[in-house]
């Protein structure tokens, strides 16, 4: 039953939380459309934010396929994100110490290959470790990578970072010229406040298109993987690794596959970021990026790809919202900006772990093919389809 063919039935089939989230998203989208039409929110800035949120969602997808599927505590998200960003930037930036100014497609390839190689190199020693040791070891190795990018100036330009990165489609035959060719459109809904869509708007629109390709592709692959026997095995490893071993599975090999897959997705987010932000510095490898992504995944619901999507958007709302609070003069200076963001993230982690450790949108029917659900299941499974069918939770 699709949302389009049978909206009523689709709505009834959602859990109460899902209905709440859907309604909230509806309201937010509506208010965003109003803000955009009245010109209160710049269209190109909105698209930039959307790109950023989608990028966090992509990172969350990556972490989800490691932590949510397999239970690997990877605290080196920022490092793989940085590898993707640096791979892309080193190949394309105008001040790249390695020559640069190649086609962004090469940057994409280099970023992904770099991430895959490092993922295997980090995975070989650490994936045998038990969960909390894995967390500490990956955080330590991520710091090694960060120290490397800061100190090896001849390779990475050090703390100055890489500038002059082209947009992804700049050298493509048709797409490269779109922003210049497209006319500036002026929409005047309210008298006196026209909304102008110019060069930067088309530029950002292209970015968003690229992001949607990345996001859509990743989502489709992960959804397929999650419901496949492969995904089922990963979930077994997550809940009881000894059981998976006892069934004769080489759990180390499966953990490695899941680790590399997740790292590739994170690097993909890094590549996108390089072409969105056009500047890459070692700051992007700071551990705080890792923890933002963890917040997104835990908040959304570990193992749930829809949850990761939601979490990514919430994280950007917090990041950019705190910047906005900074501009309101009523708020005292010392409260605004970075400390407030840190406080919000910290409190959010504590509150989620206290009151909803399974996240807002825990995986329910995502884990099984829709056709596998029989009609005997209650129409409103508040505790999830799996529970009501006697499957129990998976964590």
């Amino acid at each position, binding site marked *: 039953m699709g949302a389009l063919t049978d909206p009523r039935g689709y709505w009834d089939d959602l859990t109460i939380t899902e209905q709440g989230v859907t309604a909230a998203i509806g309201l937010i989208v509506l208010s965003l459309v109003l803000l955009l039409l009245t010109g209160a929110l710049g269209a190109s800035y909105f698209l930039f934010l959307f790109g950023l949120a989608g990028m966090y969602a992509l990172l969350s997808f990556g972490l989800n396929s490691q932590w949510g599927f397999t239970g690997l*505590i990877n605290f080196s998200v920022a490092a793989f994100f940085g590898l993707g960003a640096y791979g892309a930037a080193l190949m394309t930036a105008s001040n790249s110490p390695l020559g640069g100014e190649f086609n962004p497609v090469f940057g994409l390839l280099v970023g992904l290959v770099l991430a895959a190689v490092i993922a295997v190199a980090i995975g070989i*020693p*650490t994936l*045998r*470790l*038990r*969960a*909390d*040791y894995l*967390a*500490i*070891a990956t*955080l*330590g*190795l991520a*710091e*090694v990578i960060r*120290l*490397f990018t*800061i*100190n090896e100036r001849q390779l990475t330009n050090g703390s100055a970072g890489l500038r002059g990165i082209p947009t992804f489609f700049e050298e493509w035959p048709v797409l490269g010229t779109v922003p210049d060719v497209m006319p500036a459109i002026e929409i005047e809904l309210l008298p006196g406040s026209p909304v102008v869509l110019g060069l930067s708007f088309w530029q950002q629109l292209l970015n968003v298109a690229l992001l949607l390709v990345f996001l859509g592709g990743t989502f489709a692959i992960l959804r397929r993987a999650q419901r496949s026997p492969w995904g089922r095995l990963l979930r077994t490893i997550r809940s009881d690794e000894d059981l998976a071993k006892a069934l004769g599975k080489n759990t180390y090999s499966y953990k490695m596959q899941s680790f590399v897959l997740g790292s590739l997705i994170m690097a993909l987010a890094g590549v996108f970021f390089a072409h969105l932000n056009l500047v890459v510095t070692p700051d992007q490898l700071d551990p705080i990026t890792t*923890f933002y992504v*963890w917040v997104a995944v*835990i908040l959304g619901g570990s193992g749930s790809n829809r949850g990761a999507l939601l979490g990514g958007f919430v994280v950007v709302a917090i990041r950019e919202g705190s910047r906005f609070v900074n501009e309101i003069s009523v708020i005292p200076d*010392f*409260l605004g900006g*970075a*400390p*407030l963001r*840190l*406080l919000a*993230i*910290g*409190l*959010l*982690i*504590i509150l989620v*772990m*206290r009151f909803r*450790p399974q996240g807002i949108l825990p995986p329910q029917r995502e884990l099984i093919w829709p056709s596998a659900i029989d009609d005997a299941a209650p129409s409103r499974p508040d505790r999830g389809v799996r529970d009501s069918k006697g499957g129990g939770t998976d964590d």
Partner: protein
Amino acid sequence: MSIIEYAANGLVYSSIIVLGSIGLSLIYSIAGFANFAHGDTMTVGAYATLVAFGVVGGVGFSVLGLPMGFFLAMLIGIAVAAVVAVVTEKIVYEPLDIGSIGLLITSIGVAFVYRALIRMGFGADAIQYDVGTLRPIEALLPYGIRMTQHDVAIVISAAVLVTGLHVLLQHTDLGRKMRAMADNPDLARASGIRTYRIKLWSWIIGAGLAGSGGAFLGLFNFLEPRMGFNVLLVIFAAVILGGIGSVYGAMLGGFLIGMVVEMMPLFTDLGIPIGIEYAEAVAFLIMVAVLLMRPTGIAGDAIDGEGV
């Protein structure tokens, strides 16, 4: 520079790392999770010392270039760190009904809250204690050792605190119960030990030692909101090297890792081209190597596969 000089620097830095490591190891074995807020507990101790020092001022005679007021302020800093840790345990960790991984993730949130509040109160800039800068001790210079009286104060104070903990663990009732609980929590509970109370005491002692380590770190370098987080991984490396759950292992591990970090320039002298800026990286690599080859650490007992 001579080996002796690096060793002297290493001794000072090790003293600080040891104070942090003991607390982390205690909480790891008794509360049962890797506490990522431990570094920021050190920061709390450092800033509490700063505030207390501002209040009590430079009262009293001066010992090793530090007024007695500083030592008094440090005791207050230790107390504040301990109180903050106990309050956090009561409000945050105790009501949680999740495993050690959930607690680990929660402690990251706690760390952010500590750090955010400190940044709101004191800003992000580096601050120093108002105790003046000292020249190296003249008598040691002929031996090639450049150590200030403050450095000596750090080493002696750390030695006093560590000895105190040793006496507590070996010769008091509380110490025996703590060792029993670190060894096997279930058995300890079954033997009639009020494990809840022991857990609170280990938070008090662990956070108190972290607070003193933070205060010394501030004296050794300077204070800034990220100071504790910056040494957290070095402390984890020390704890893992020594063997998680072993207080004496943490002392040994802290000493060794502190020495390695400060003796980094020796590598270049020996012809191994690795800069001082990679000191921490070397500490992490040692940590990973230890995890692989001897996960129980140098002094660790053979723990069961799942650990605490």
